[in-house]
């Protein structure tokens, strides 16, 4: 009976155990894998390593046309592409991917490669 | 080759399994693998005090094997599953699910085997 009084007192004076969502949200860590939101199109060299390593074939890279396409609903958010990218240019966001009625495909297009400048060989007379 | 592997033939299965049960082993599972030349390797796994004993059997697909569920009741579920996924028939199972243990009615026959699927082109009228 005296345990009960202690319990009642504790329940009346302590804060609620739940958070007032959606007015207050949880703070997320930095290394949380939420969803992929795109790449930095100018830094990417279109090598295609992320295309080969993706376990669910969600990324398609076209080197000739300089495009990078991801189907976001095939992505399983494993983080392999972020780890193996040689230029570290894939962005991983922290928020969880929300549902939608049609599939979202993100297309990133880089500027075409600058043509190589021919340098003339100039001979110098000694 | 697995360690502790013993190759047996189809006539001696029931005797070997009886012997293993008398020695005090426990049934673990059965594994089926299809070889490139379309025969089937069947492994029986038993365990006692953390030591695994494997019995290996190689058969053709049309052969009908005796069921060991009268000796080990625990084998009845995995025999039904092998019958549905690979097409190997077992004779005398304690509970017979008749083709509906794991697969539904709309699935293909024996999906784990290398089937030849022929797609015919329908003429457009």
């Amino acid at each position, binding site marked *: 009976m005296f345990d009960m009084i202690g319990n009642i007192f504790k329940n009346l004076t302590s804060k609620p*155990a739940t958070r007032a969502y959606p007015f207050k949200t949880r703070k*997320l*860590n930095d*290394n*949380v*894998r939420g969803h992929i939101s795109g790449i930095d199109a100018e830094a990417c060299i279109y090598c295609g390593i992320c295309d080969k390593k993706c*376990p*669910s074939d969600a990324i398609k890279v076209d080197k000739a046309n300089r495009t990078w396409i991801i189907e976001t609903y095939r992505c*399983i*958010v*494993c*983080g392999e592409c972020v*780890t193996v990218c040689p230029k570290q240019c894939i962005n991983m966001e922290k928020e969880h991917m929300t549902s939608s009625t049609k599939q979202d495909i993100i297309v990133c297009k880089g500027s075409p490669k600058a043509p190589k400048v021919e340098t003339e060989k100039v001979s110098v007379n000694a | *080759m*697995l360690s502790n592997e013993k190759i047996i033939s189809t006539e001696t299965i029931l005797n070997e399994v009886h012997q293993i049960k008398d020695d005090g082993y*426990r*049934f*673990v*599972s059965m*594994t*089926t*693998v*299809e070889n490139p030349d379309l025969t089937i390797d069947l*492994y029986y*796994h038993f365990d006692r005090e*953390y030591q*695994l004993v*494997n019995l290996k059997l190689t058969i053709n697909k049309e052969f009908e094997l005796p069921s060991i569920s009268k000796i*080990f*009741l*625990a084998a*009845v*579920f*995995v025999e039904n599953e092998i019958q549905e996924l690979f097409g190997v028939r077992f004779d005398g199972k304690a*509970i017979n*699910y008749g083709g*509906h*243990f*794991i*697969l*539904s009615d709309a699935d293909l026959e024996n*999906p*784990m085997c290398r089937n030849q699927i022929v797609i015919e082109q329908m003429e457009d009228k």
Partner: protein
Amino acid sequence: MGKTIIPFGPQHPVLPEPLQLKLVMRDEKVIEAVPAIGYVHRGLEKLAEQKDFMKNIYLVERVCGICSNMHALSYCMAIEEIMGIGIPDRARFLRVIWAELHRIHSHLLWLGLLADSFGFESLFMQVWRSREKIMDIMEATAGHRIFISTNTIGGTHKDLTKEQQKDVLNTVALVWDDMKAVEKVFFNDYTVQHRLKGVGVLPKDVAYELGTVGPMARASGIIFDHRTRGYAAYGELEFEPVVETDGDSLARTKVRLREVYQSINLIREAIGKLPEGEIFTPFKGNPNGEAVIRIEQPRGEVMYYVRANGTKQLDRLRLRTPTFANLPSLLHMLPGSSLADVPVLILTIDPCISCTER
């Protein structure tokens, strides 16, 4: 006196995953019952033959949501045995830490569902509130609450810094205190004893003959725990398997609750003994050969058979999960019980049907 057939259908509030039983009853007593599965068959073993063997780690992890890290661990151990790769010491201890965190979360989930099955909803909510602390620490160290993807062939991807190790120790200390408060209700409460004591008794010789594994076997008196064989870093940690002898549902609850304490002690010991060094050995080439690996998942003993033929794709991947081995014990326990006990009995085998059907 006629018989009625009641379908304990695939959708039921107490089941975490779909399982159908057609119960043949006479007047509140079950006469016979045969389980039927097949509602979540995805054909994962066939898909694993068509993908790269490195990409299969992510596929195998998604067989089940509750024991996902241990599936990836056993797959990596099987490929490492075929190719003969040795892993560094720090990686072995890190694998133990994440595996034990997963074991705690699985047992806490089960304890909550058991309390819900006999109607004690406030106990269910209390236990799942402690489980949220474990999910938060997994998100803080590995990036995701369930599919933590830390294991890879040759070691682990991720490391634990000193800050993160302190966070893990603080969290498990809070979970220890929560479980001490809840333990009194599970073991000594009058109504809980009425629902669990003497229900579904499985004697020791029947359990051995039907091939039961895991906490179900340990609650009937069989001393069988694969962690004593010493894979990963378990050979260097000290612990004893938790065994009870009664064989009824109360004994299974006691085994699983005491294993939560055992896991917390293992985590503390592993963090104390964590050596310095690399976490990953690189390797080249494709596997060629076959191997059988068995480890201890939260529900029991899992067996993996892998056969590879020298190309990037495997020849065969076969997994036999512990719930598949515990299903025949339902055939023994259900006949003779009353209808109100059927949900409790099905939950005591810890059914993970998506593991069973892959």
